[in-house]
């Protein structure tokens, strides 16, 4: 995927520290020595191409409610069907298939621990399978920002 130099800057510089002002895109434009309309157009294009999934606050699931990692060991031929049942819960925000006996890994977030426990029980009921519950006990590092080296690793457009 080819990115303009403005898009590259937007991707690398604003994975944190998006300006908290009434006209943030204008401020970004000033920081990058361009104009506001260019910045808005570039951000819109990146969102449209799904290179950026969203622009806005990233919430700490744990502090905005109660959250846990969970896993299910699903018989392989039932994986899609069970995944679909799990995904129907709006409290499930991530769900990955992984190579292991525990092959379905998902994050469940709810308003509080009581509600979360209830949701986990419901997931066991609708899947008929035991859920491995692995809440976070300590966090050592969370940094989801990537410094993309556009010159070294030209990123190819993924067809889908």
């Amino acid at each position: 995927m080819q990115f303009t130099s403005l898009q590259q800057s937007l991707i690398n510089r604003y994975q944190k520290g998006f300006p908290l002002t009434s006209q943030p895109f204008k401020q970004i434009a000033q920081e990058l020595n361009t104009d506001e309309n260019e910045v808005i157009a570039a951000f819109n294009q990146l969102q449209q191409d799904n290179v950026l999934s969203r622009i806005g606050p990233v919430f700490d699931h744990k502090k905005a409610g109660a959250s846990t990692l969970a896993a299910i060991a699903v018989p392989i031929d039932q994986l899609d069907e069970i995944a679909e049942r799990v995904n129907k819960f709006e409290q499930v925000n991530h769900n990955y298939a992984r190579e292991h006996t525990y092959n379905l890994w998902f994050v469940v977030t709810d308003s509080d621990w009581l509600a979360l426990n209830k949701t986990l029980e419901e997931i066991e009921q609708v899947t008929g399978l035991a859920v491995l519950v692995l809440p976070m006990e300590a966090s050592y590092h969370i940094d989801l920002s990537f410094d993309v080296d556009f010159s070294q690793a030209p990123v190819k457009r993924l067809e889908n």
Partner: protein
Amino acid sequence: MSVSTYPSKELSALERAYILLTQNGMPVIPQPFHYIAEQLDISVEQALAMTKDLKQRGIIRRIAAVPNHYKLGYRFNGMTVWDIDDEQASKFGDAVGKLPFVSHCYLRPRQLPNWNYNLFAMVHGTTPEEIEVYRSQIKDLLADVLQDRGNKLESYNMLTSTKILKKTGLRLKNKTA
């Protein structure tokens, strides 16, 4: 299957409404906080102040243009899991978390006999070989604290992702009062 019950951080009704409104992103318009203020029926100053306050309390981790890593070429991720000495977990968790290719590093409870790993570190890369190298670097770092439980349980593993089945931002339910 059960998690301990302890109270989550209190959120006001307005803060809850703010989260519901912004969790899927803000509009890309010249004055996005005006839009938020209007929706919540508060002033722009209040909307900005609330954002700063939530950030200060750690409820907002950061304000970001959130990239889709897959589209940027980071197509491979591995959840590396380790069974390490509890006494050393904090010290070594911290060291693993500092590695540049680790995005998350967490301590989680073991669920014996099925699950003996207590340290989780996510690694990301553009090729399968790249994340293998990362796993071996973490293994070197943890060599002295890995627990040997005999033949029945491995002391470490890497669970690679074969398919993203669902991925959304925080979805707080819209509770009817």
